[in-house]
């Protein structure tokens, strides 16, 4: 461990101090908590606790938290950096780091926490699933171990190579097992939500999803409409690509087709490779159950619509939910394509109408959910000129720098640009709050759109942090003589730990216009920019649900057991749902020493 490196240490003057710890690994939740705790210490103005990846260093630059020493940090180095009122305050804060870390550790002194997958298996042999949310470079090895132990895998980690993904999925299939992911954010197995999952009714709709927040939005939509979920399998965002050949999706589809609990099947994905789509649709068509397909942002071809008898196509996530529940039958009637079109089964207007943004100002959509961001881009692209994003749409306009908005901007803060060695914005609001305030200070910002995704695994009360930031952002713009409309869309159910109602209330009180249907929120934003708000105002949607809710069993856990390697919040949320779970206290092999780890793999 190096001594604190002082960048600007004249006594009494603000100083930025950093400490680099080589070869460290900590759960990203731990890093977030440490960052919070450091920032809360007396005399500390701002703090950063991140792994030294290029993306994280870029983030530190954005927040004026960078020293030359930090710039030299390697991706496996832990960066501790504080900006403080004085060098002394900064030093004192950095010296508290070990105390803060050990204080946390002592909270877990009770039951034994296994250090490896094999000892966890010994403790809970009935576990059929292993959840893996380690940093990408460690994930594949652990997944391989899990498959060798005969476990199915929910792989939340991203930054796993295509080669690894193919070999893991092939190996799983040869063993009759499934790998959901990499980059699989959510799933529902035997009534238990994995990863980021909402509390929804158990029911008859089975879902195959190559999209995390897309799956969440559909499940929430189905629940809102009175329907329920049998099983929901994530596949990882790349599963329907030409390289991966929908290996997981086909497995999941076959499972749902045979599953007696499932009566309807939903397939949702970003636009897949054409040949993969064709083969997957052929398999879907061979199912003896009705299938609703949403390839977000791609309109079905005539041939697809006419030729595939049991398949129907939906265009938005909420519409997918509607079609699955059986409320609408035609893809054509669902999407409003111009002024005056009807929004079916909406959730009503927000209590605060969306204000018209100022002239020559732009949309700044700050998403935590990748698929939601993608759907927003798709819904906006024909109406707003030149919407830029951080590489969400293939062939779309890209931001020069993902950390700086340009014109109309839709940015996915859960994308790889932002999450390497860092916590997802659904868990840690810090990044989004910083970005929100940055946008509020930009005179070109005309309207801010935020998604707030609830459920197990997500932040326990996101609105409690986001609402004050919204209020601050509005005030900041106001001081500058601008009005800043803020639109928020909350994806969740009343049964979620955060409570849909409580979240909506807090955000509304802060001055946001709040929606609970994503397509509706995006439409409202679009209308605000294209000046069609009058057409919208006359429209009042029908009741939220036309199916009697409560007809089906609400989600109850039927003996689900799992092993979790990585984020502790996943263990907590499984426990909260009544599942049996053993948490692995994982550390990098050989303390992160790569040459020793290589030697060990030769000695296996």
């Amino acid at each position, binding site marked *: 461990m190096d001594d604190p490196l002082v960048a600007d240490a004249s006594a009494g003057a603000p100083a930025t101090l950093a400490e680099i710890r080589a070869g460290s690994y900590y759960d990203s939740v731990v890093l977030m908590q440490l960052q919070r705790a450091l920032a809360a210490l007396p005399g500390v103005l701002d703090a950063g606790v991140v792994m030294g990846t290029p993306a994280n260093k870029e983030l530190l630059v954005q927040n004026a938290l960078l020293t030359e020493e930090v710039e030299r940090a390697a991706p496996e180095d832990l960066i501790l950096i504080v900006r403080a009122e004085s060098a002394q305050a900064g030093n004192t804060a950095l010296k508290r780091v070990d105390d803060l870390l050990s204080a946390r550790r002592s909270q877990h002194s*009770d039951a034994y926490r*296994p*250090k490896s997958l094999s*000892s966890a298996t010994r403790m809970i042999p009935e576990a059929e699933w292993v959840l893996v949310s380690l940093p990408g470079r460690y994930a594949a090895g652990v997944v391989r171990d899990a498959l060798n132990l005969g476990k199915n895998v929910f792989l939340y980690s991203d930054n796993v190579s295509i080669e690894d993904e193919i070999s893991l999925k092939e190996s799983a299939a040869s063993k009759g097992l499934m790998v959901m992911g990499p980059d699989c954010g959510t799933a529902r197995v035997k009534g238990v939500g994995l990863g980021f999952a909402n509390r929804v009714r158990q029911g008859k709709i089975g879902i195959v999803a190559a999209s995390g927040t897309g799956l969440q939005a559909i499940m929430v939509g189905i629940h809102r409409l009175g329907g329920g979920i049998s099983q929901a399998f994530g596949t990882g965002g790349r599963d329907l690509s030409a390289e991966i050949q929908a290996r997981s999706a086909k497995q999941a589809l076959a499972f749902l087709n045979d599953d007696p609990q499932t009566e309807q099947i939903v397939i949702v994905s970003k636009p897949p490779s054409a040949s993969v789509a064709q083969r997957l649709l052929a398999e879907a068509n061979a199912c003896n159950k009705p299938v609703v397909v949403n390839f977000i942002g791609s309109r079905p071809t005539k041939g697809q619509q006419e030729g595939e008898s049991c398949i129907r196509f939906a265009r938005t996530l909420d519409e997918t939910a509607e079609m699955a529940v059986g409320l609408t039958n035609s893809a054509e009637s669902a999407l409003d394509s111009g002024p005056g079109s009807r929004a079916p089964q909406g959730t009503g207007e927000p209590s605060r109408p969306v204000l018209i943004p100022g002239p020559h100002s732009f949309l700044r959509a700050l998403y935590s959910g990748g698929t939601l961001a993608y759907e927003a881009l798709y819904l906006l692209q024909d109406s707003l000129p030149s919407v830029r994003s951080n590489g969400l749409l293939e062939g779309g306009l890209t931001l020069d720098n993902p950390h700086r908005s340009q014109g109309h901007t839709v940015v996915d803060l859960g994308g790889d640009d932002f999450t390497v060695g860092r916590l997802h914005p659904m868990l840690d609001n810090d990044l989004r709050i910083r970005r929100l305030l940055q946008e509020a200070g930009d005179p070109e910002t005309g309207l801010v759109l935020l998604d707030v995704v609830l459920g197990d695994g997500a932040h326990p009360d996101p609105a409690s942090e986001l609402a004050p930031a919204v209020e601050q952002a509005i005030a900041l713009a106001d001081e500058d003589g601008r009005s800043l409309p803020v639109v928020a869309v909350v994806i969740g159910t009343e049964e979620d730990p955060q409570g849909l109602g409580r979240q909506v209330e807090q955000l509304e009180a802060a001055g946001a216009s709040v929606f609970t249907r994503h397509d509706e929120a995006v439409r409202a934003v679009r209308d605000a920019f294209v000046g069609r708000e009058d057409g919208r105002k006359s429209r009042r949607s029908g009741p939220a649900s036309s199916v009697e809710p409560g007809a089906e069993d609400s989600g109850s856990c039927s003996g689900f057991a799992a092993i979790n390697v990585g984020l502790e919040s996943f263990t907590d949320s499984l426990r909260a749902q009544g599942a049996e779970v053993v948490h692995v206290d994982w550390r990098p092999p050989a303390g992160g020493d790569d040459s*020793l780890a290589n*030697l*060990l793999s030769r*000695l296996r």
Partner: protein
Amino acid sequence: MAINIDNANAAAVERIVEARPVLTGLGRALDLVPGMHENLLLHAGPPIAWEQASGPLRGALIGALIFEGRAADEDEAVRMIAGGEISLSPCHHHSAVGPMAGVISPSMAVYVVENQTHGNRAYSNLNEGYGKVLRYGAYSEEVQERLRWMHEVMAPVLAAAIESCSGLDIRALLAEALHMGDEGHNRNKAGSILYTKQLAPHIAKGAPDPATAAEVLEALGDNALSVLNPVMAACKAMADAGHEVEGSTVVTTMARNGTEFGIRVSGLGGRWFTSPCPQPVGLYFPGFSAEDGNPDIGDSTITETAGIGAFAMAAAPAIVTFVSGTPQDALNATMEMYEITAAEHTAFTIPQLDFRGTPVGIDLRAVVETGITPRVNTGIAHKEAGVGQIGAGLVRPPIELFTEALIAFAEEYGF
């Protein structure tokens, strides 16, 4: 190269677990211990020169020469050792083990433990009990007098009793003691009572007179560590059975000489890997603190090497207070050791873990991979010769030992 480490380890551990150590006799070191000679003193841990020896080890070496009648006082003893007239050698090089300083001199009595499965033997000295004792480096007249009584009065009685009972199965005794709250290293209360009970009728029959029988029985019964030395010899006999299995990464020796911690690995023969000894973490007797403590010392880590001691901590919740813990911590200690061991013992089981076998056979690879080093329960010696035990606690060998050994293993076998 067709080395299968997993198979080699399985073979090594199988030999350790299947070894059946039986206490078969007691006699003079010079007559029994291989390689022992008139000018040799054995000591605990890896090899060490007089110059590097810590206080307790120096005191014990001096005391042993006085006991032997070779030196009249400290100065003469130091001259003889420093001058090379007397050689030093690790107990482990002579199939022997000794607690703390572990000094065995030619005329000392040693237990003979025979592994009746594989035929190898191991040796250990007599346990002196608590207080001012040679193994903590004390060598005053009081200590000498006690040693003389043990050798002149107690040893012949014990030797006769052991012979009369025609062998005492230490593995069976340990298995029972683990079900009575012992872990076999820091807690040997139950085992010592079982030991005394088994010998008692033979002592009563064989002692020259009832007063001597009573004296010997009292000494055995009062000493909660009576059985420690036979247990250590038994563990040595078991660990040696698993030593020198080609291609095995199982650790077959862990020992400290008060200056260095040393390990040896089954597949790497006699080679020691050493590094400076850490200080134990634990509880100190009133009036003492960590500042008074000597770096860890003794061959008693042979118990952990053989799958008991700290590895069986779950069986001995009564002594978790040494590390200011809770009974749950005792369970967790054993659970943690499963992460680095190759097998579970078939003879030694833990009621608290649903009679799961104790973790046995430390796998070098697992230690390096997980960063979890073996736990060792230990007594803490005062750093000055002769003060004695000042506490008890936990120590872990430094990870570097295992990393170094692993690299050497990879070189040796061409990985």
